[in-house]
């Protein structure tokens, strides 16, 4: 299998001037992925490991209006969003439209992103999921009651680091997953089959993520009790 084309090269990006600077300078805290990864990572030795780029940090820059950071996020996520939508059954045009729409939402909603709560890819996934549902239904997706995640206006850096570490771990585990298992998860997420199978899947570090969130929710509830 040949290497996937670079996310950057795949997108005929007419980047704002800032983007070229960001790429050239290495953009502190971020390295630009030079190539995409194959599905299971085995035959893409040149690919960077997941986590080489701190997408959460880039999202925080986008929240401050940093267009170069947005261009980096776009170059990475837009082709993956399109790929995700194509696998979900969207046609070429719709997949492209949704990918573009989701990235526009990323730009507009970036100030709401909380790195202490979820990784950048998780946050972008939820925007894409809701966008796909909006396409299929008249009503917006029913969401749980909103919880204020914490009293601090600034995200808790320790919590954000835990999220980052867990996210990296999960992405590495996904890369290392046997193809058959990967396809099982994909089929469930793309609505092609029951979720019963992924419910019994083992080997993915979802338990640690769940435990941390549970702890954060407990702290949140107790904080609310005091107030």
């Amino acid at each position, binding site marked *: 299998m040949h290497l996937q084309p670079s996310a950057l090269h795949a997108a005929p990006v007419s980047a704002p001037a800032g983007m070229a600077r960001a790429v050239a300078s290495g953009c502190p805290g971020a390295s630009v992925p030079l190539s995409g990864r194959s599905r299971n990572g085995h035959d893409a030795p040149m690919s960077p490991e997941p986590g080489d780029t701190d997408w959460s940090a880039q999202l925080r820059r986008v929240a401050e209006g940093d267009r170069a950071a947005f261009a980096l996020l776009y170059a990475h996520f837009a082709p993956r969003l399109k790929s995700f939508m194509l696998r979900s059954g969207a046609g070429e045009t719709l997949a*492209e439209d949704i990918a573009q729409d989701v990235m526009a939402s990323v730009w507009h909603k970036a100030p709401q992103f909380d790195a202490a709560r979820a*990784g950048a890819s998780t946050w972008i996934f939820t925007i894409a999921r809701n966008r796909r549902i909006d396409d299929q239904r008249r009503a917006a997706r029913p969401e749980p009651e909103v919880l204020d995640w914490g009293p601090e206006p600034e995200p808790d850096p320790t919590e954000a680091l835990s999220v980052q570490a867990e996210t990296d771990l999960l992405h590495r585990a996904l890369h290392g997953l046997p193809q058959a298992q990967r396809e099982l998860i994909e089929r469930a997420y793309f609505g092609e089959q029951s*979720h019963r199978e*992924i419910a*019994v899947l083992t080997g993915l570090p979802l*338990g640690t993520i769940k435990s941390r969130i549970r702890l954060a929710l407990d702290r949140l509830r107790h904080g609310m009790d005091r107030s």
Partner: protein
Amino acid sequence: MTDRDDTAGAPHAPAKHPGAALLSAYAAGTLSESFDLTIAAHVSLCDACRAEVMSFEALGGGLLETMPPAPLARAMPEPAADRRPQATPGMQEAAARDGDLPAPLERYAGTSSARLRWRAVGGGVMQIILKAEGPGRARLLRIPGGMAMPHHGHRGIELTLVLGGAFHDGTERFARGDMQVAAPALEHMPVAEEGQPCICLAVTDAPLRFTSLLPRLAQPFLRI
């Protein structure tokens, strides 16, 4: 989560919770609207399941991150000069009291808990049908204490979320926030607990596309 059996999924869901299969399908966005609504309402009342949904969202993020990039046809549009003002996710008034509707349900009922317009369906049972696109039918039920819960069908997975009062199914007591997941074959005879009425959200029919073609039988008792 010592009270949870994390390996189970519907229809063998852990007692009183939706189970990993439904929670992951909710996170993936592959459920019908009425099932989405029921899970959103349960998650509003259950932190364990909220955490589980968020971990499945992280898995979705992982899938997205590890997709092979597809070439884009169009160039990146210039980001808008002004951001559209986004609704700040402030704290919603949490539905705290027994019988109050969680926020996602209030939206579907079209009113606050205090102003619900119940319709009698016989035997003292009242209901409100919620408008959700099919497959799946969602309704609020208000069953007088001590009365048997009306059967609402066994053609697919059936979800019952208690919002006020409680019911017993012979072995378990289900109170506010508890969800009963009943498989088509399950024989159960739930009875509302003596005292205050049991208010619950009941959703029937198949949640997933591949089972959505199961026939829907007439339900004369509930006039549906």
